[in-house]
């Protein structure tokens, strides 16, 4: 917990520009270019991180609650009511309760971060997210010292989600992180894309983003966050433990049992788009490699 960056923000607090820029350069140095305006643009270019088009990001989605086809979420997710919205934060926290989305937004500092996004199905995008660090939200609720894991849950609304009529997964969708992963400054809750409110098919009104893990770890439309002392169940792991581990870190050396993870295709390149090599921890090894020091990643996949 030593690396925790404490946020004591009130509505009147604004991150001083120099601090913001410093942090941005820090991130950029390790490939997570924070992009805003011209500086962001320069950093992106240096990193070769060209954001995917808004259409690619919002029309090619996995959100099985709205159907298993890639365009199903864009077609069906308008059915989801995202206001009012609240997130229940409970478990090992000082201030458990239902946190209204507006209150969360008032307390948080929204930044833009351009992250790689790698799906377990071996496709990828680069997404300019807007959002805040998960650590800030957890600090709001006050994490107790015996908490070791964070569990997340997606909304389950059979009336609004045509996909949950089928037992593709054991609904509601649940995910989890180790507390140090959740507290890592790269881990964020996204509330926007390209400066606009995050579209429903991308997980409105707020979703987790863990850029060094396969996309399914970045749970959408979060309604509950629970701090626990035990490793929480996660949906894909429950569906098929042999194929999907709790960690699910992007790792070109550990294949999915049914397909290779050595390469990926960037969505949006058309019919003749070539595969590119997949990077260890999705290119964030310098930032998060320490979290897994000494762990056998082929065992804890």
């Amino acid at each position, binding site marked *: 917990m030593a690396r925790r960056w404490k946020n004591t923000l009130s509505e009147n607090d604004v991150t001083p520009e120099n601090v913001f820029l410093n942090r941005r350069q820090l991130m950029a140095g390790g490939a997570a270019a924070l992009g805003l305006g011209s500086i962001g643009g320069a950093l992106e270019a240096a990193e070769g991180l060209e954001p995917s088009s808004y259409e690619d990001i919002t029309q090619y989605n996995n959100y099985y609650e709205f159907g*298993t086809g*890639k365009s199903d979420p864009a077609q069906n997710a308008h059915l989801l009511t995202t206001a009012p919205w609240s997130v229940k934060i409970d478990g090992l926290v000082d201030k458990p309760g239902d946190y209204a989305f507006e209150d969360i937004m008032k307390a948080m500092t929204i930044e833009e971060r351009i992250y790689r996004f790698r799906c377990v199905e071996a496709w990828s995008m680069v997404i300019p997210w807007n959002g805040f660090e998960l650590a800030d939200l957890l600090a709001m609720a006050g994490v107790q010292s015996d908490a070791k894991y964070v569990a997340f849950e997606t909304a389950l609304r059979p009336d609004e989600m045509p996909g949950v009529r089928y037992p593709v997964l054991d609904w509601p969708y649940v995910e989890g992180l180790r507390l140090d992963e959740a507290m890592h400054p790269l881990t964020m809750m996204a509330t926007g894309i390209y400066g606009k409110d995050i579209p429903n098919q991308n997980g409105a009104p707020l979703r987790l983003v863990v850029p060094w893990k396969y996309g399914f770890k970045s749970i959408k439309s979060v309604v509950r966050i629970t701090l626990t002392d035990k490793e929480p169940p996660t949906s894909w792991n429950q569906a098929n433990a042999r194929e999907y581990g709790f960690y699910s870190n992007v790792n070109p050396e550990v294949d999915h049992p049914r397909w290779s993870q050595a390469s990926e295709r960037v969505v949006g390149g058309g019919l003749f788009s070539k595969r590119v090599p997949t990077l260890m921890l999705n290119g964030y090894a310098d930032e998060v490699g320490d979290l897994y020091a000494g762990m056998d990643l082929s065992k804890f996949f």
Partner: protein
Amino acid sequence: MSVVDRINGVARKVPTWPLYILGLLPVPWLLYLAQTGALGREPIKELEHELGLIALQLLIAGLTITSLRRYLGLNLIKFRRMIGVLAFTYVALHLLVWVVLDMSLLWGQMWADIWKRPYITVGMAGFLMLLPLAATSNNLSLRKMGAVAWRKLHKLTYIAVLAGGVHFLWLVKGFQMEPILYMGAILFLLALRLPARKVAQRA
């Protein structure tokens, strides 16, 4: 005149060769859709899936011919070769898209995948089984081999179509209905043949 008789009458008059052309029309159509963006944001995967799906549908259609005649008296046997050859063509195109567009000719990774990924192994096995069938789908081969040997060889279709069904079932994530329905149709059509064969053996 019953409906079946009428269909049989029409079927006798319809030539098969234009149907090859009709059956291949989805190929330029899909390529056109891929170019215009109508296949979505990831046209390679979509093209690959569509071609595979058409192949599986044709393989299943080929399986229905015998049962339609046996149980309904519908005689469409003259179209069976065309359906089979088209099915093979679509399987070959599906494979071609995988090799060239999907895998970007990464031979090493493809070779590893064929051995290590069960759904790819099964799919590739199905393709290999279809090769001798496509090669002998002509009158000359039929004459040279003799009807008995030819028919025996072409029973490989049953295993190939099962391979296709398993290939689909095995590649999806989670519990999805579509491949299960296809597999159900395949098993149903294969089951229809079992009792008839037993009866034939007894007689």
